[in-house]
């Protein structure tokens, strides 16, 4: 059976179809899948998806234990949480998931309610921003998965119960998803450019996520990635022009820049100084040198500005993406206090043992937690390249 998810996408993305669609997907999976994923099986599904029915047990959706993870999962398709490697049978102890994040088949109304609440109000909803047209869609799957992007004290334990192999599989599958999504974005951008050209919209610059930013030097126009090239070009040509002027033109033309139209040689003679001094014309030399120096200094400043602005830092975490964990005051460990006996008995003679420490549950020992303002990216405007990769770094 071939299900082309792409064709079904409009259905999925429409607000009220998501849940019935899930049902359809679930039943079709159960009925038709074979142990090994077929090459023409265009339907994306998770390596070992689990559909949680309620808190204490789960219905395993996976068709087999042996699905190869090469089929990359599309979270949207199933909107499930992925404890990869979970066995199909119920013989394993049910995993406990934080109730806040469960989405249950038993309660489809909650999700529909959420959607309808967002959609209907007695007033017009704010117009969706163009760059976020995908956001409601993504909101669907993430919300459906019960995943909340903001951390709390218990959330680092989210994937706590998974086995090491499961975790590795999950990481791999998610990273695959990310690459796929990036590729999709790239193709969509191509389409976008094609279509805007068709419609006749004037060729827009590739919309970058970062707006232009003001120049450090007063009175100059704001910089963007595009006109940075113009800046470089102008600077370069100015410098070379000045060098050529100072080095070639001025001596060749025997410019008389001194007072009263005299050359430097005349000046030297008039001052009765040795003629050797006249070999270099200081007026032109100083002017050229100064100009080149100033222009290159300004250019360096501007380049610095560009670097800074492009990675405009989130002020809360100063660009690191993380905030110090308050539970352990940034150390990563919690000191356990044992009551110390002070009686003059056998306990009094023993030296105090070093206080035991345990790993801080808030930050799992890393000493830092996610910055909720920049979502761990460290940038004021979050984008794909960020410090989420290694929380222990």
């Amino acid at each position, binding site marked *: 059976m071939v299900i082309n998810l792409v064709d079904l996408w409009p259905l999925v993305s429409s607000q009220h179809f998501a849940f019935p669609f899930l049902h359809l997907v679930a039943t079709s999976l159960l009925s038709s899948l074979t142990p090994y994923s077929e090459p023409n099986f265009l339907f994306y599904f998770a390596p070992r998806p689990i559909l949680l029915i309620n808190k204490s047990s789960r219905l395993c959706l996976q068709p087999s234990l042996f699905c190869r993870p090469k089929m990359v999962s599309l979270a949207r398709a199933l909107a499930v949480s992925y404890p990869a490697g979970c066995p199909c049978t119920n013989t394993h102890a049910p995993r406990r998931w934080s109730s*806040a994040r469960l989405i249950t088949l038993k309660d489809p109304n909650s999700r529909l309610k*959420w959607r309808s*609440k*967002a959609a209907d*109000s*007695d*007033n*017009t*909803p*704010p*117009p969706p*921003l163009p*760059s*976020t047209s995908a*956001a409601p869609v*993504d*909101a669907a799957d*993430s*919300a459906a998965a*019960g995943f*909340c*992007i*903001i*951390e*709390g*004290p218990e*959330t680092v334990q989210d994937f706590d119960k998974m086995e090491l192999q499961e975790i590795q599989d999950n990481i791999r599958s998610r990273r695959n998803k990310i690459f796929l999504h990036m590729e999709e974005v790239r193709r969509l951008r191509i389409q976008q450019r094609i279509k805007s050209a068709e419609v006749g919209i004037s060729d827009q610059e590739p919309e970058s996520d970062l*707006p232009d930013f003001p120049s450090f030097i007063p009175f100059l126009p704001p910089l963007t990635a595009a006109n940075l090239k113009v800046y470089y070009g102008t600077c370069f040509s100015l410098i070379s022009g000045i060098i050529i002027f100072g080095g070639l033109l001025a001596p060749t033309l025997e410019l008389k820049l001194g007072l009263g139209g005299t050359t430097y040689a005349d000046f030297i003679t008039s001052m009765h100084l040795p003629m050797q001094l006249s070999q270099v014309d200081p007026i032109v030399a100083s002017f050229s040198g100064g100009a080149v120096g100033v222009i290159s200094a300004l250019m360096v400043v501007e380049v610095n500005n560009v670097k800074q602005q492009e990675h405009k830092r989130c*002020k*809360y975490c100063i660009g690191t993406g993380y*905030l*110090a*964990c*308050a*539970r*352990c*005051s*940034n150390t990563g460990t*919690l*000191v*356990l*206090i*044992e*009551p110390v006996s002070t009686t003059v008995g056998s306990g009094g003679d023993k030296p105090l043992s070093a206080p035991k420490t*345990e790993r801080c549950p*808030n930050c799992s020992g890393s000493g830092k*937690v996610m*910055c*909720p*303002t*920049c*979502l761990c*990216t460290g940038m*004021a*405007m*979050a984008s794909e390249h960020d410090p989420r990769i290694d929380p222990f770094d």
Partner: protein
Amino acid sequence: MCSVFSLKPCSNVAISADSSITESSWKRNCVSATARAQVIVNVTTAAPNKPSSLLLKQLGIPHSDLRVEEIVERQSSHNEFYRSFSTDHEVMSRKIKPKLDGEFLDESYERCREICAEYAKTFYLGTRLMTEERRKAIWAIYVWCRRTDELVDGPNADYMMTNSTVLNRWEERLEDIFNGRPYDMFDAALTHTISQFPLDIKPFRDMVEGMRMDTWKSRYQNFEELYLYCYYVAGTVGLMSVPVMGISPTSSASAQTIYDAALYLGIGNQLTNILRDVGEDALRGRVYLPQEELAQFGLSDRDVMSGKVTDGWREFMKAQITRARSYFNLAEEGASHLDDASRWPVWTALLVYRSILDEIEKNDYDNLNKRAYVGKGKKLLMLPLAYTRAQSRPPTLLLP
């Protein structure tokens, strides 16, 4: 949402560029019920020639509905003043020492200061007029409020796929803060602030509620709805800061009236924000002006979006500005009931913020296209004026 912190909803405009937003959000003043009635009477008699149908509703939602007195009571009781977290049973049972050591806290407060200086420059300058302890507390509160706002209105709010889960979790974290278990360094600064000043959790909760409202509501039918919103996002700020500012021991007014005045100052600030940013908000599809009142003056959303200033619009704006001013007057009466050291910054904020309304008038009520802006010079001039107002003693015949 235009909050008193002048955070622009979902825009990339540098907030701190707007230096006309000042610490005015933090100021609260005491006013007696009679003074309040007086002001209302004044408002209604101010324009004797206008038919009564063109006058706007003055009172919003009674504060008893908002359960402000609970907050007042909890924040006034001195028993809770020195909050100790050692009574946290879970902590005791697990024998884990909650570390809020000095160095960590100092760094947290320092970071709060930097953020305040970065995002609210004029407000920051105002806080410099306060005592050191109060300053730190205000910064910590500011950072929390700003972070909460950025969840809904910040540049990355779209990635957060703002739904109730995010704000629910944020509220859980708030509860943890009040239980002495802060999650990150800014939470820790707020936890320490709570141990120093008798703050109650309800205003913070109400602010989160206001953020929730902002995720789905973009039109307001009547003034009551708008008042509720203003209470949530700005009135709560006033309530949060009264314990920090402190009430003067020589004041004869009751705590309730002082808190009411603080609330009114917050409302006034928020209304001013709204009136200043009509055009900007309209561009983003939000109209905060009550629909019924627009209709009362023969206007509608279309007029707001059109960007054209008509005579009808001017009349409407005049009435709105009058009402906003009345809230400032309500708040003004008892500015001197605050602690001595806190009066000057409060008065400064009040005066500067009220002058934004003057600027709107000077722009010929064109808040659809122009942004009313109080220049630096004018702000500096307010400082000595505020100083003189701050020196006046509380009126002795004030009824509690």
